[in-house]
């Protein structure tokens, strides 16, 4: 490898810029000062205590967990159907159907949310956590399909043929051969959809009828300076959680590639 000191220092500078606001999270979450300002005052766990005793926050966190678990499950299941069908079979209407499934990737989220909202209001469906879930699934399914498509693509078709030749039914082959091999992809898809849903704001805000949902709650609280330190404590917890979840997702993805005998080509996307 050729050395490139200029490029390297630029890249490090770029990383510092990317991390600048995030680094503030733990710094001020443990700082005892009531306002977010340097110099730091002293070490405290009060903000974490305040965060844990906040009843609204607990409700919001519970709602977000319910939403994220449902969204991750639903979109991964829908993703399995779509990815398996598109990788393995040729059928009429495949291109427009897959295009429609992937469409939310190239559509501003606000438009997806508003279109759905207009229809829900017109037919009189009351807004609830349920409407947030069905809306978010539209946003996360393309990610699930993308991850699962690459998982299904790395499958060796001859394994499947061998099972069929040995007398397994199509369902038996799927359950005994294919499912275990794509399991890492399924887990990665579940974790990534969970993370996206947990952070999602627009659909939670507009399809949630003002129910406390974590991202919406955080957005509201940042307006009150007195609430900022406990929000920074919450942010610290959330960042640690995302990193752990992503670490797991990356681990499963790599194991999947190793299982299928492929070569690691880097990153999730």
């Amino acid at each position, binding site marked *: *490898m050729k*050395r490139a000191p200029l*490029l390297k220092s630029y*890249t490090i500078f*770029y*990383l510092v*810029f*990317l*991390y600048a*606001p995030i680094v*503030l*999270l733990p710094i001020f979450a443990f700082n005892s000062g009531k306002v977010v300002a*340097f110099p730091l005052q002293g070490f405290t766990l009060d903000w974490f205590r305040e965060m844990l005793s906040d009843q609204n926050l607990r409700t919001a966190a519970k709602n977000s967990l319910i939403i994220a678990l449902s969204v991750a499950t639903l979109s991964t299941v*829908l993703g399995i*159907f*779509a990815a398996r*069908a*598109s990788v393995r*079979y*040729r*059928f009429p209407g*495949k291109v427009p*159907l897959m295009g*429609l*499934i992937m469409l*939310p990737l*190239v*559509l*501003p*989220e*606000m438009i*997806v949310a*508003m*279109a759905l*909202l*207009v*229809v829900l209001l017109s037919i009189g469906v009351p807004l609830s956590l349920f409407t947030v879930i*069905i*809306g978010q*699934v*539209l946003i996360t*399914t393309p990610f699930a*399909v993308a991850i699962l498509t690459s998982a299904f693509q790395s499958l060796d078709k001859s394994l499947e043929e061998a099972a*069929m030749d040995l007398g397994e039914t199509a369902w038996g082959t799927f359950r005994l051969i294919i499912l275990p091999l794509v399991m890492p992809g399924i887990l990665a898809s579940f974790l990534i959809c969970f*993370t996206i849903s*947990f*952070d999602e*704001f*627009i659909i939670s805000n*507009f399809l949630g009828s003002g129910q406390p949902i974590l*991202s919406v709650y*955080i*957005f509201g609280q940042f307006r009150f300076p007195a609430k900022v330190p406990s929000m920074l404590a919450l*942010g610290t917890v959330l960042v640690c959680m*995302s*990193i752990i979840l992503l670490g797991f997702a*990356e681990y499963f993805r790599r194991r999947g590639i190793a299982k299928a005998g492929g070569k690691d080509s*880097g*990153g999730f*996307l």
Partner: protein
Amino acid sequence: MAATPGSEARTGLKLISPTAIYVILLLAVPLATVLIYSVMTGGRGNVSFPVTGENYYSLLNTKGGGNLIDYFAKGMPGEDPDLTFLKWIWNGLSNAVYVFVLLKSLMIALAVTLITVLLAYPVAYFVSFHVKPDRKSLWLFLITIPFWTSYIIRVSLWFVILGYDGLLDKLLMSLGITNTQLNFSSYGVPAIIFILAHAYAPFAVLPIFVSLEKVDRSLLEAGQDLGESRWITFLRVTLPLSMPGVIAASLIVFIPTVGDYVTPRLVGDGKQPLIANFIETQLLKLQDFPQGSAFAVASMLMVGIVSVGFVLLNRRFIRGQK
């Protein structure tokens, strides 16, 4: 194995049907509804017949009851010597509320796209060309972590830093650079561009990295063996070959930024509404379904046209190489 093409098609359709039905009911039908509403007559909270093109025409309305078409059709008034041609156009556009929001969102999103891609390219280049293969995923992981942390928290943190009497103001004042609050976050458009460019930065690195990885290294050696300098080799070989990644990065940044809702709400007390904020006002606050739908369709069209433009640009690049 699947015996006939007919049975394969049937199995495939059956398999995709749950996902297909879901997106048809919850995505295609709502989008079609918006399209239909946009040509209906309507008042507050309801729509009715007859079908009309009025809503699209009203998108060109200007403040004070005029219309952009009339404004431009009248031609430039000759009597005022201070009025330059550009100023005349600007006056017209800035008075047309809907058109102005669309154009402003477009300009902001394009500026953010340009900045993020320019800043990300050297980073992707460094990781692809100057990092040992076994260390590459570590670097990529470091670059992508910020993207996976809550978007709301990242944007709100900028507010803590740049807002009135925020960290930046306190720093500048304690250093004696200014003695009043700078309050950068009230600076409207520049603040929006800055925060969005930070929020979407990691998106741009990955696609560029992927296309740089595909560049055949022997081509570069060939270029240098034939006596080209490193810089010329970069311009004539690496850069054109990585263009598909640059275009992909541009699309990935452009689409979410043009529809961003949170940043314009936070910055400058929400006095710079962009497309998403405007749709909210129209559809939720005013409940003007036909007009709001027409605006939503117009903005979708705008995003679509720009995206197709990016893709065509990419095609031209690929053809140009042959």
